[in-house]
């Protein structure tokens, strides 16, 4: 059997990422590759859809189908794609600016909709690609190019928002703990519905506050919480609030989640894209007859 086993190398391509050395996004890339391999997926079964940002480049660094879209719209692309072809494993990804600033609306509504996708946000609490402005995740007082006197906006709590929006799967990883991240992504992909995964992915170039060390000191793995039950939405919310959003691991999963696709009236298991385009003459005539 060993020769059949997919390894993460199957998901590597020959592009050298243009991320800065040490960027947290390398770990996210590696974790995605390993998760895909662990799930026994083949490259053509997967599509990685990404937004614009340093993080958004990820779709070009992985050997799967990839769509690098517009800023903030990865989830809209991904949802359309999944509706077209529900056999695909669709992973959307991007930065915290992409997903929580310009794209926040789609994030919330994708969560509500619960289409079977996995969404990975590389949360570095800053805008990397545009060279270091504040992001909705930047802490109050955080000094950046755009907030030289410190940010004066309250940072978003994306996972609390996700729970409030009715998320059925909420998890958080950290680039320093690739094993945990792999497990989270695997679980997210297996989850029947929308999996919301926030990853602390340090920007070593522009964010000198929320560094690897800083995160290491601040994260609270769910395992450290006695008897943590990831099936209780209210408790999950409480735990997030109490840890100021620093909880990592699988924070909440609805065991009864039914994906959007499975709720659509008349929607088939056979992907749309494999169904015939042409109507039968009789079908057409029946439709038209309604107008006579």
């Amino acid at each position, binding site marked *: 059997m060993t020769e059949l086993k997919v390894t993460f190398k199957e998901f590597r391509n020959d592009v050298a990422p243009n991320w800065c050395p040490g960027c947290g996004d390398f770990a996210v890339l590696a974790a995605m590759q390993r998760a895909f391999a662990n799930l026994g997926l083949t490259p053509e079964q997967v599509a990685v859809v990404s937004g614009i940002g340093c993080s958004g480049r990820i779709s070009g660094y992985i050997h799967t189908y990839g*769509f690098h879209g517009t800023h903030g719209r990865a989830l809209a692309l991904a949802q*359309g794609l999944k*509706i077209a072809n529900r056999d695909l494993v669709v992973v959307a990804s991007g930065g915290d600016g992409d997903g929580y600033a310009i794209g926040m609306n*789609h994030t919330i509504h994708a969560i509500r909709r619960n289409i079977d996708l996995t969404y990975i946000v590389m949360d570095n609490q800053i805008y990397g690609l545009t060279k270091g402005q504040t992001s909705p995740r930047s802490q109050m007082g955080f000094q950046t190019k755009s907030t030289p006197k410190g940010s004066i906006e309250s940072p978003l709590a994306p996972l609390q928002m996700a729970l409030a929006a009715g998320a059925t799967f909420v998890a958080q990883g950290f680039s320093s703990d690739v094993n945990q991240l792999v497990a989270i992504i695997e679980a997210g992909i297996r989850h029947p519905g929308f999996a919301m995964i926030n990853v602390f992915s340090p920007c070593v170039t522009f964010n000198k506050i929320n560094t690897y060390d800083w995160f290491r000191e601040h994260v609270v793995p769910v395992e450290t919480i006695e008897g943590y039950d990831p099936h209780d939405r209210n408790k999950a919310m409480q735990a997030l609030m109490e840890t100021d959003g620093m909880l990592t691991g699988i924070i909440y999963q609805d065991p009864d989640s039914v994906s959007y696709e499975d709720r659509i009236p008349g929607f088939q298991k056979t992907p749309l894209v494999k169904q015939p385009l042409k109507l039968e003459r009789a079908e057409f005539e029946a439709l038209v007859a309604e107008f006579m």
Partner: protein
Amino acid sequence: MVDQLSWKVGGQQGEGIEKPGDLFATALNRLGYYLYGYRHFSSRIKGGHTNNKIRVSIRPVRALSDDLDILVAFDQETIDLNARELRKGGVVIADAKWNPRLPEGVGDVRLISVPFTSIAQELGSTLMKNMVAVGATVGLMDLPVEPFQEVVTELWGRKGATVVEKNMQAIARGAEFVRRELGGPLDEFRLAPADGKRRLFMIGNEALALGAIAAGARFMAAYPITPASEIMEYLIKVLPQFGGTVIQTEDEIAAVTMAIGANYGGARAFTASAGPGLSLMTEAIGLAGMTETPVVIVDTQRGGPSTGLPTKQEQSDINAMIYSTHGEIPKIVIAPSTVEECFYDMAEAFNLAEEYQVPVIVLTDLALSLGKQTVEPLDYDRVEIRRGKYLGDTELPERERLDLFKRYELTADGVSPRPIPGQKYGIHHVTGVEHNEVGRPSEGAANRKQMMDKRLRKLQGFRLKNPINVHAPHEAPDVLFVGINSSEGVIREAIERLEAEGVKANHIQIRQVHPFPADDVRPYVERAEQVIVVEQNATAQLAHLLILHVGYREKIHNILKYDGNPFLPREIFEQAKGLLKTKELI
């Protein structure tokens, strides 16, 4: 007996006055008459005047008539606002209940007060006053009652035979009352018999939706907006039968982007909206252009700018549809003129989108999208499915693991083969950033130029099968009329009258808006003494396209209307006469 007749029903919005109009029109359609309707309504739910003007004829009609033969009024406001439109000898039918009166200065018009409400009450429910009103029309026009029986049964059959019976009684009572009042049928309201053929009766939006289904679209993503919502609402009802679905998205950006995502996945998917939605889609349309992802987008034009006149007729998005989005992409814009064309053009739009791998915008206007009209049979066999270089159902040849598929291969026609996610040997990357043949970001100058050239090459020489509709009987006409979208019928009626006065008029209707079919249009412009572009906007957008692409600026005149109402034949006729007079042609 008359060949045609114009009927209007009016009342307060939200009070169910759609019913009598629909019933009247459907019954007459069943009798084989041709119908053309336009609803006047406001951007509010209850209250405010609304009306439905329906033209009935034994011959095809594609325009409103200038005047009105019959006005059915559910309130005094309806009379006050519309009585002036009645021709000499026209009739107002109104509910006796509120003592209807004709406003000052309305000339030779007859008012018949029919006790809509009391008859309905006698029959058990004031709701049936609508039916009494329909009956009054039946009496006035001396119509057979059978088709009404049929439609009433369809409408209320589920509620049981008594309900049907009551409603039919209401119609009978209304008819009886008017017959008694008139002392016998008036010849001027009796339509010549129709051919009795069953024809389709639908709005443009329904035809667009049918076209999409016929073309194999099984996914629509959309956000509600007037006057586009019916497309989505129809498909929501129907698509589940075919395994498809509609997602009502959070906004139009999500809608169009989802449609792009689904097309990337290999499905045929689309969205539809009106001006505000299209404006929001601007960035995404550029993404489709850059990534060469097919996508179809319907723009049902309404009064702009901004929220503008959401329930009114206009044709003012032409420029925006051609030029919107930063940077330069290939894009197709087509504009059907009739409900039939809505169907065929919509189906064709999906072919074009896939053959050229570009966004295709199907442009309609409110009168076309919402006007309910008699429609020639829609021909199943005319709907082709052509997918161009789509490889989704092809077995791709084996290749080395990292030898990505050249999704953006530089080809002679600029179009590249297109595998879809899931295919084993089709892996490639797609990005809105400039990219190389396998879709990887590339900033190189040489690659950039090649890729821009490739994309723009796709539509060089592009030509629809029918880029313009031509009605050009004259070799050397005095005037060429040029129109777009719903104005075809009204221009033709104006031309009939002009011809009757000795004017030689040709007429083309622009269906291929972008790329502009200059070579098709030019000969007609050249041959004409004068050109009159009829359009519903204030800045003569279509005329400017002519000037830009064909020239002959000095020949080109405009008839513009931008007050929210569709053209009437008389308006074009008279303004054209004015323009022609200045040229001393008449």
